[in-house]
Every structure is written in C-alpha cells, then in structure tokens.
C-alpha cells in the first residue's frame, strides 16, 4: 500500500471499474478492544464482503484523508478516512485508511472477481 499522493491515480482506477459488475469489500472498525481499553468509548463498525454491484460513476474527494463515493444503480457506497491505496496483482483497487499508529480503520476495495 502507498500513501495517496496523487488522487488522480485513484480516480483513474475508480473509472476503470465503472459500469461493470464488481465485488465490494467495505469495512470500518475501531478494533474489538476499543471499549475494553476505554470503557467510555462507544465502539461501532460495519463490514460487507463480496457485495456484487455496478456503479455508474465514482469519485475521490477531500485532501488526505480522502473520501470515495460510488453511485450504484439504486443507491450509494462511500468511505471516508482513506489514506492508502494499491492496485494489486489481481487488478483490484484496494483503498484503506490507517490511523496515526498505522492501524487500519477503514477499507474500501473494488474487484472484478470475488474476494477469497
């Protein structure tokens, strides 16, 4: 994963997957121990893996950390807090947000084939 420095690179990758079937991995997390270490902390998160969608367009916005939104046929997908990206060897666009300790806080991944 590389820090997102040039958001146009990410925009190009997002454009490539528009108007075709893609599989989405989306997660947000504070970690399972957040409320254990700080009992006043309200821990929340969500996770979806291998949601099959099509988006008509997608957009990256913001200035480090970034936001990405995908307009799908009947609704929306978005993630915020994104700091890193990679197009991996399986041609998947992996986006993630790492906090200032390096811990993953959010991930949005777009793949033409199902995730394992």
């Amino acid at each position, binding site marked *: *994963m590389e*820090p997102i420095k040039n958001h146009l690179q990410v925009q190009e990758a997002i454009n490539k997957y528009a108007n075709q079937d893609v599989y989405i*991995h989306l*997660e947000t*997390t504070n*970690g*399972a*121990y957040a409320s*254990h270490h700080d*009992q006043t902390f309200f821990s929340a998160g969500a*996770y979806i893996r291998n949601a099959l969608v099509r988006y008509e367009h997608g957009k990256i916005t913001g200035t480090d950390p970034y936001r990405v939104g995908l307009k799908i046929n009947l609704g929306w997908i978005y993630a915020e807090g994104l700091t*890193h990206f*990679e197009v*991996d060897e399986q041609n*998947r666009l*992996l986006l*993630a947000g*790492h906090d200032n*300790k*390096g*811990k*993953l*806080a959010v*991930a949005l*991944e777009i793949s033409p084939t199902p*995730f*394992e």
Partner: protein
Amino acid sequence: MEKERHVLVVFPHPDDEAFGVSGTIATHVQNGTPVTYACLTLGEMGRNMGNPPFTNRENLPKIRKEELKAAAAALGIQDLRMLGYRDKTVEFEDDEKLANAMLSLINDVNPSLIITFYPGYSVHPDHDATGAAVVRAVEKIPAAARPKLHCVAFSNNCVQELGEADIIHNISAVAGIKLAAIQAHRSQTEQMFGDVTEKLKNQDPQMMVWINNERFWTYKFNK
C-alpha cells in the same frame, strides 16, 4: 504443572495462544505431552499492518498463517489445525453446527485437558463465541468422561464475577520460548515489542508478572 495425556488448545486467532498460554503449552511439550492447537481463523480482520503499513487487508491472512506456523514451531506444537472460519464472524455461525464441529475435534484428539477462552469474560466476540462452542461441545459428553476445561479470561469484570483464577502457572523456566512465540507473530506484535523489549531488559516488575504468570479458571459446568 500436572502431567497431561494430551492437551487441546482452541482459540480463534493466530497470536491468542502466544500471550496468555504459550508458557503453559511449552511446558506441556517439554513434559512430553502432545499438544494440538486448533485455530479457528487467520485473523483476517487484524488492524495492525506496521507503520507505515507493509501489507494490506487481502494479504494479511497469508502473512498471519505463516506467523502462526512459526509460533507453533517455536512452541514445539506438532499438530496445528487451521479450521477455516473467518475473523470476527465466529459469533454469527450457527451455534449448534459450531458446537458439533468442536465436538468432532474433541473426539478426534481425545484430550485430557482443553484450554480455551472463558465465554462471557474474554472481551473479543470471537473469543467468547469460541469458548461458548467448546463448552457446549464438552457438555454433550457425559460428565464422567469429560476432559478438564481450563479457561483464559481477561475482561475487566472477570475477577469480580468469577473470583480469582484457580490455576496459576509460573512459566519463568520457559519465558524465552514464550517470547519467541510472541515475536513470531511479527505483524501483530512488532510495534508493541519495542516497548516490551525495553521493559524486559529492565526487569520491569509488572511486565515480569504478566509474562511469567499464566492464569486459568477451571470451567464450572451447570449441566
């Protein structure tokens, strides 16, 4: 530590074995007792990936699988089983199916002692769900034929509600092996390890108590 015929350790994540029970495992192995470690997931949802990150969500499980094998090798575990569940989803599995899977495992291994998490007192939902499935499985065995069940607990309320642990193993004789097991899970422990190494060098009293003492609660069955 009492000599066992065969020990079965059941935890959901690679590295669960390292912190709380690896000294106990290493001691059993040194006593000539076979140890089976069944690890339900590959810790696919781990949040630690180095800083700056050296991997990504999709490759992390491959790294953690190799780390798990390395930790098992460091501890001398001969029988490592990866059960193929997915991190953070164990509690959503069908309860009965999961208990039956644990029962088949127990029947296959035929242990004299099982080590797992104390359901309800182990913080992470996967920990509680794993412990609960093992308890349900053991409850299916007639009381007289059951293996012993030693549970790890560390929720903030565990001592208040369960009382003090009834088993405390001082594992200082194998502390070096324990540290090797913790270090084997590099992706998850390296960042904290800088601090740990420093504290060990200074024989930080709190750290030495944490490293050297492994505590268990014998599970009390209602049925």
